């Protein structure tokens, strides 16, 4: 199933909230550190499922990114947001992008979504 505009509206809104470090918009939720970054983890997982379907080889790097970011951020959501935002900006700057359902995404944000979709019980 293709991603709708609404899915991405939610996802990009969540992303920008993290990028701009607006704590009010970043809900702290149980689960993985990356989960806590997204105000709507379900939308992020849906994006992640599409990333994994389009590029199955991203599963391993997605997990690696999640682990690395967690270590860097030591579990703090703001720090995690900073770290991911820097990577996303660097990806866009250096042309490391992926196109998922027509959306032009930074590789790191695609991997971050994929990581949230790798958890147990995610119906991709």
């Amino acid at each position, binding site marked *: 199933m293709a991603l709708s505009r609404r899915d991405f509206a939610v996802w990009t809104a969540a992303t920008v909230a993290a990028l701009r470090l607006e704590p009010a918009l970043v809900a702290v939720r149980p689960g993985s550190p990356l989960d806590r970054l997204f105000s709507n983890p379900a939308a992020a997982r849906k994006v992640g499922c599409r990333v994994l379907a389009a590029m199955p080889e991203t599963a391993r790097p997605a997990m690696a990114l999640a682990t690395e970011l967690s270590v860097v951020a030591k579990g703090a959501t703001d720090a995690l947001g900073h770290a991911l935002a820097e990577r996303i900006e660097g990806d*866009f*700057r250096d042309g490391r992008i992926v196109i998922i359902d027509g959306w032009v995404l930074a590789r790191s944000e695609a991997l971050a979504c994929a990581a949230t979709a790798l958890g147990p019980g995610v119906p991709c």
Partner: protein
Amino acid sequence: LLTDLRHLPDGTVLEADICIIGAGAAGITIAQALAGASLQVMLLESGGTELESEVQALYEGESVGLAYPLDAARLRFLGGTTNHWMGQSHPLDRIDFQKRAWVAHSGWPIGYGELERYLTDAHAICDLGAPIYGPEQLRGTPHEPDAVAPEGLVLRYYRIATPPTRFGEKFRATLERAENITTVLHATVTALATNAPASHVTQADIADVSGKRATARARVFVLACGGIENARVLLLSDQANPAGLGNGSDCVGRFFMEHPELHAADLEAHDFKHIAQRYDTIERGGIRLIAQFQLPPEVQERQGLLNTAAFLVPWMAVTNSGIQSLRRLWWAVRRGRVPDQMTNDLWHVVSDLDGIFGATLGRLSEGAWGTPAEIPLWVTCEPAPTPESRVSLADTVDTLGLRRVRLDWRLSDQELRSAQEVVRHVGMEAGRLRLGRLRLKEWFTAPAPAWPDDLKGGYHHLGTTRMSATPAHGVVDVDCRCHEVDNLFIAGSSVFPTAGCTNPTLNLVALALRLADHLRDVVRT
């Protein structure tokens, strides 16, 4: 003096030093530049001072390549196609004049400097203010753009006169007052007659749609009928050579170019107001500016791409169906086009007056910009010059018995690749600058992308009498003189060997001023 062939006796012979055929942007520019000079100028216009369906029908023809509205894309009365010109103006770029190894048939025999010399005067003619096109003009204003990374994209600004200059209206008084200019309306040139070797034009045969005939004689003739009709007149002038006048190289009508315009993607913007302030139409001192993201020359060369640009259209980004329809209608009217979905759009407007009222009120107040659904991103591409894209003559004839035009408009994969690349760069910059995320249109991401069915052109017609250093590779020389015909000059965008990714009018006006300077010398000597 302004006169009308319909009021002259049948068989009239008109005489002048210079006969300009066509009173559009190029023809009028040359005529007004010669006003007051010590030479006689005759300006022949096929139409009158208003649109007339009988005359406009002379533009009908066959489109056998990519679909093209031959009759709607041009206007045949005083002022020509400037009568529906949107006024978007930007000079060609330096790279457009260069021979590019990755663009077949590229390269002008003149340099950018030849255009640049006349830009200030061309700006005055087109009411465009100073020739400034960069983001520096907005520094310190609320419209100051984001810091786009120059290695991936260059930001430039189109300038638009408000309202766009209608050459017929603006220069009619000049043409009427000038004692050395005679403008003849309803005078359609049916052929150029020549000496036996077809090296010298002896006269232009003229008719009006009722069948009245006349003759124009001059020392010098200037063909200025537009990028399609210039080729048609040469091909119709086949008394001495069946291939047409000036067509020894078989280039007349070939290399037809038009700028494809595509709705290629949508930006899911985080902050509509931020985007609208910077990338919607900006009013500055009576001139409107529109930002465009362009591929830098280095990227074009490195990746073998054509000169291509993209622009956001924030004013089209609304979710309300009534206002969306209203804007589509306004968009079409501004471009002089019949709206694609006129009935549906009119119905939406009528049935959603509440929504339109609310949106209008909302826009008046700060903070009511809201977050729109998506902001369209359009792309305009340089067309690759290819000989197979061409104007030729059809077997059917018009009311004057003249063979109609057959247009075979073609584009290549290179335009598509270039469009994809500029969109990719905009997507990257939108992400890096935290403006939002870009979503490409479905046809754009297909495994084997093809041009969409609703592909549109900018109504720009170029290349069919291209300029070349030698007769083997084009139709006119560096002075816009026909290689094979010593007293025939050609003005307008048909002489452009390449088209860049900019509207041609400002550029053809500049080159018409250059030609006017040259014609003074030619007639004097």
